[in-house]
């Protein structure tokens, strides 16, 4: 089931009412959420559930075995076996389409819940987490519907305690959850939805576009993928807050980063933290010689690339970012910032603005590799930007670019907040009727101004 389907409009209120009718009875609330999550996940094809169920039960079993084993070596062996099983499943289904073809389905969300399972096994082995006693609670931890398809990738020590403790209805949290979901829908349907056709037409007719049109399409793709993915995450987080469960934020204004490493700390945060904790730090992290740090960074980005897919374009995309981040390591150019950009000011300083522009340009250029189907396509696109007349035949996508600029201005003004609709403190929206008028207007815009049904780009990973 998709967050943006008619079915979900019926599903969510039904789950919400039943869930809070069971308030105070955690066990039954979890049973209900588990049933709802399985229904949500198996809506299109029930067979995907078998893989999720098998993966969850294997993880649960290994977790219990690790938990009850005292010998350190045995714990590690159990953990390694469990992790190997998960990696094998992921590789089999994700990278050998043959198996997916034989089974007749592609397992949506497989890489998200596999990473969650691996993190759980490692955390239990390290003694950082303990598995829940009831299998239902663990199955829910794996399958919880707001995050099953595209994340965020949750850790046992943040999600499990919430699933095991009583939940009280929080009015402010629920209202803010609705606003966050509404902002997510706006980002997905309006910003990403309007950018998408321009990007598709540019990629479908590279030779017929002017150089500036291709550059604009490139910028629009950056906004499309950000709004599509972060929009989805906002809907997931908002939905979950309606149920009194906080999921981890996955984005923190990535396009306001002053360096590429900072961008990666703000983009798909839960995935990058996963790689930091379970790959980068075990490899030695940054506390070793520079060449070794460069190697670690390269390994991490190659695995990030492989996580997206085993295509040459993704591998080059990983190498591209590894090279940029390695440059920061080798040159000693500042990559980490302890304070927010333009903290306490409305506008950034000239230096900050330049750094943000350079970072955005580097990231956007890399997106060509992300969007291209083959390396030849990417090369063709880049050479067309360099060789095509600058404006011949006009520039496409200017209206969409203006929409993106307006969107990013709103995000800039609201940059310290969890989402742009946290407007209670804003004087303009102090009165309730004005706030409501804005919410109603945004809802109508989302319904009536949407272009085409939106696919969530990251659900394919």
């Amino acid at each position, binding site marked *: 089931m998709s967050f943006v389907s008619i079915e979900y409009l019926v599903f969510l209120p039904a789950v919400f009412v039943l869930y809070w009718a069971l308030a105070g009875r955690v066990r039954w609330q979890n049973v209900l959420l588990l049933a709802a999550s399985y229904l949500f996940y198996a809506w299109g094809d029930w067979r995907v559930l078998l893989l999720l169920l098998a993966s969850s039960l294997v993880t649960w079993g290994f977790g219990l075995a690790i938990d009850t084993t005292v010998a350190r070596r045995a714990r590690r062996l159990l953990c390694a076996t469990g992790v190997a099983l998960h990696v094998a499943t992921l590789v089999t289904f994700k990278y050998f389409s043959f198996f997916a073809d034989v089974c007749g389905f592609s397992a949506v969300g497989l890489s998200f819940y596999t990473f969650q399972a691996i993190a759980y096994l490692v955390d239990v082995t390290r003694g950082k987490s303990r598995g829940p006693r009831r299998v239902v609670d663990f199955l829910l931890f794996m399958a919880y519907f707001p995050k099953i398809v595209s994340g965020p990738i949750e850790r046992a020590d943040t999600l499990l305690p919430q699933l095991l403790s009583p939940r009280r209805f929080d009015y402010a949290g629920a209202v803010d959850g609705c606003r966050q979901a509404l902002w997510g829908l706006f980002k997905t349907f309006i910003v990403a939805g309007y950018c998408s056709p321009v990007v598709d037409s540019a990629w479908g007719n590279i030779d017929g576009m002017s150089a500036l049109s291709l550059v604009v399409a490139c910028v629009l793709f950056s906004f499309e993928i950000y709004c599509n993915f972060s929009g989805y995450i906002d809907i997931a987080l908002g939905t979950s807050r309606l149920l009194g469960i906080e999921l981890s934020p996955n984005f923190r204004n990535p396009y306001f980063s002053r360096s590429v490493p900072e961008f990666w700390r703000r983009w798909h945060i839960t995935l990058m933290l996963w790689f930091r904790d379970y790959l980068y730090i075990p490899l030695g992290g940054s506390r070793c010689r520079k060449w070794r740090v460069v190697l670690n960074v390269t390994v991490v980005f190659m695995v990030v690339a492989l996580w997206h897919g085993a295509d040459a374009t993704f591998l080059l995309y990983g190498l591209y970012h590894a090279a940029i981040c390695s440059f920061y390591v080798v040159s000693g150019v500042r990559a980490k910032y302890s304070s927010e950009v333009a903290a306490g000011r409305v506008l950034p300083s000239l230096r900050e603005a330049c750094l943000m522009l350079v970072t955005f340009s580097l990231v956007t250029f890399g997106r060509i590799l992300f969007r291209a189907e083959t390396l030849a396509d990417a090369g063709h696109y880049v050479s067309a930007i360099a060789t095509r007349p600058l404006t011949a035949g006009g520039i496409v996508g200017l209206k969409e670019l203006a929409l993106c600029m307006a969107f990013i201005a709103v995000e800039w003004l609201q940059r310290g907040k969890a989402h742009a609709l946290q407007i209670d403190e804003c004087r303009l929206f102090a009165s309730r009727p004005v706030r409501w008028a804005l919410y*109603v207007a945004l809802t109508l815009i989302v*319904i*009536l101004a949407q272009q085409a049904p939106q696919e969530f780009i990251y659900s394919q990973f």
Partner: protein
Amino acid sequence: MKRFVTYFAMFAAMVVALLLAAEAVVRHHPNSYKYKDAWMTRNAERVSTLVLGGSHSYYGVDASLLGDSAFNLANVSQHPEYDYFVLRRYGDRCPRLRRVIVVVDAVNIFDPPIEQLDGDRARATAYRLYMDCDKHSRCSRYGMELFNLREFNRKLLPSLRHLLRGDAQADCDTLGRFNRHDSSRAVSVAELERTALKAAERHRCTDYRHVAYNCAWLDSIGDYCRRRGIDIVVLTPPAYSTYRKHIPQRQRDTMRAVAAKFARSYHAHRVDLFDADSTFTAECYLDADHLNREGASRLSNLLVSKAGQ
């Protein structure tokens, strides 16, 4: 909790009220379905000829040239199933009905039911709402314009604009032929070539399963006409040469076989103009498979001369 549910219900009620207002605006806007229903309700008693079919006859047959009591009941993507529906609904009210022009072309007998076509699904809603077609219930997804969101969004702003200006008009002329502002223009050969490839690609049949389904509806039309002693003219409208060339041979052969069999079974006049390049030159086309006003005049005059007035 109670406060949240109350506020949420109020918010949802506001949104729903505004959406219903938008639905009313779109429904208020004139369209060819509404116009044809109203015209037939008023004038059915004097109608002697009805034109059925999809956009090829909707654009291409000028009922004013067929005699003084003809009306064009064709509409975009109106396949035999809905041809039969409009014939039954309006034909029953036409005591003087003598002739029905049925179209068999490279599209209408190959397409699946419009409910299965993404771009045409909203037309089933139009038949439900404006012609009272009972194929779908009022409570189904075809019971409101709003339920076909993409089409609804496309219609909303023009409907609102026309409502405010007070200049709204249906897309057809008084006798039901497509009559938008650009319906008389002639296009360049280059544009015809371009649209020919696109249209042929769109109309190329890869799945012949729906032919039997559409033929069954053609037979229903034939049986209805036979029962009432109504003459049938089976028309295959002209199409631009490049378009024809890119329609597969099997599809063209099937189209001709179906038309011939139907004409034989119901003793109908067969008017096949699919290859009539000498009569329908480039200046007769609005695009590769639709005639403009000039083309419609020629086709209508040919129909009269070949099948009698």
